[in-house]
């Protein structure tokens, strides 16, 4: 019962160069916790000290933005793909 977390290029350096990380299904938050246990360098890259997702990061379960679901409490099922993408913004 695993999910695949896909990392953007800029974060791969914190995951020993890996593009993907596997984690147990559960919620996005539990998957991220498992991933940061494995790759401590990712800690703080996705979630701030208060446990909120950084605003410059978008996280999708399949193609759904978790900000419009249950954020880090969004459930994941076996085979889901959790994609992390930099938010697209500018001035």
């Amino acid at each position, binding site marked *: 019962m695993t999910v695949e977390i*896909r*990392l*953007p*290029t*800029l974060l791969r350096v914190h995951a020993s160069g890996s*593009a993907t990380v596997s984690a147990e299904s559960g919620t996005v938050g539990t998957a991220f916790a498992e991933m940061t246990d494995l790759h401590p360098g990712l800690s703080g890259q996705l979630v701030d000290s208060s446990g909120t997702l950084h605003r410059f990061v*978008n996280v*999708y379960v399949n*193609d*759904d*933005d978790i*900000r*419009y679901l249950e954020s880090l409490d969004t459930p994941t099922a076996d085979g889901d793909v959790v*994609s*992390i*993408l*930099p*938010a*697209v*913004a*500018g*001035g």
Partner: protein
Amino acid sequence: MSGFALPLVRFSVSQHRTIIGHCYSELPNEACGLLLGPAVGGDDLHDGEPTGAIADVVTTRNEAASARLYAIHGQDYGTARKAARESGNRIVGCFHSHTHTDAYPSPTDVEAAIHNPNWLYAIVSLRAETPMLHVFRMQSGNIAECQVVLEAR
């Protein structure tokens, strides 16, 4: 000199109309959207090198709802990414408007482009009576402009 490729960017007349119309409809705020098209290489997270052909223009909501900033709505981005995948395309760029300044990347634009260095960045200026659309590539702080053609397709 920048070392990156500058493809000829090919919009249809109706895609151009969609972009300009969206930019006006979002006034007084900046408007934004995504460009879909073929690309060489890349993967599901990393859009490859655009060929310059634009297959589709997707207008999106501006989460920043600001006259000075834009932030493409996260769900609109996810939906467009799915549409690109299903049509055999990639996200090859984005567009946004400058309501009172020229169609040239702002320092914020250059900084933000680090996240998607392969993209084409279309900027529409609404400063003058006639809207101006220019397309840029930005890599490592370098800015270069692409030529744009409008095709009657």
